[in-house]
C-alpha cells in the first residue's frame, strides 16, 4: 500500500488521517507544514515545489520503511505538494499512529526531518520585492546567486 504521496492538488489531510485509525492505535501525531508569509524577515508572496517524482516516491517509501522498523508504530501516511502554492497552503503532511505516544511523536519527527533532508523536492520562493530563487536545505531565504 502506498504511504508516501506527491500531490499536484491541495492536500486533504482528513482522508489520510482516517486511514491511520486502528483499534490498537491509541496515539496519533501529525505534522503540517504550511507556506509562511515571511522567511527570516523577507516577505514571501508564494512558492513552488518541483520534485523528481519517481525518486521522491521511492525515497519517501524508504524513509517510511525505516520509521516502521525503528519505532513501534502502527501506520504512517506522508504527502507533499508539488506545483505553485500560496501563503497558508498546506505543503507537507505527515501522520503516524501508534499504540503509545512516545513512538508516535518520535516517528513523526523522524519522518519530517528525513523527508526534508533526503527526498528530491525543491522549493522556489517568491518575494514581495519581485525576487525569487531556489532555497538551500537550511531554508534560508535567497540572498544571491548559488555559489559554485
Amino acid at each position, binding site marked *: 500500500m502506498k504511504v508516501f504521496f506527491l500531490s499536484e492538488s491541495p492536500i486533504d489531510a482528513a482522508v489520510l488521517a482516517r486511514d491511520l485509525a486502528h483499534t490498537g492505535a491509541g496515539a496519533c501525531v501529525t505534522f503540517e*507544514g504550511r507556506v509562511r508569509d515571511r522567511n527570516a524577515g523577507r516577505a514571501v508572496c508564494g512558492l513552488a*515545489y*518541483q*520534485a*523528481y517524482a*519517481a*525518486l*521522491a516516491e*521511492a*525515497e519517501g517509501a524508504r524513509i517510511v520503511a525505516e520509521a516502521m522498523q525503528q519505532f513501534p508504530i502502527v501506520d504512517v501516511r506522508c504527502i*507533499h505538494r508539488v506545483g505553485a502554492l500560496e501563503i497558508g497552503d498546506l*505543503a*507537507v503532511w505527515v501522520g503516524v499512529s501508534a499504540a503509545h505516544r512516545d513512538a508516535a511523536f518520535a516517528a513523526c519527527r523522524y519522518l*519530517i526531518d528525513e*523527508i*526534508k*533532508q*533526503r*527526498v*528530491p*523536492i*525543491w*522549493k*522556489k520562493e517568491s518575494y514581495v520585492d519581485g525576487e525569487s*530563487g*531556489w*532555497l*538551500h*536545505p537550511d*531554508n534560508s531565504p535567497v540572498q544571491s*546567486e*548559488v*555559489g*559554485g
Partner: protein
Amino acid sequence: MNYRILYFAALRDAAGCDSEQVAIDTTDARQLYAELRERHGFAFAPAHLRVAVNGEFARWDRVLNDGDEVAFLPPVSGG
C-alpha cells in the same frame, strides 16, 4: 554513448529544459557533468550535487551505460 539527462530546480532554469538527450564519449558521471556544466553554465560544483541513475541515487564514480537516464540533483529543500 547516449544519455537522457533530467534537470531540476536551478539546473532546469539554467538549462532551459527539464530533460535532453546527449551523445558524449564517456561513461564517467564526473566527465558528463563537466561537459553539461560548460554547455549550460551551471553554477554548482560537483561536490554540491548528488547523482541519480535510472531513478535511483548513485555514486559519482558510477560507470554509466548507454541509454542511462541521469540526473544531477541540487541540494533538496522540500518540506
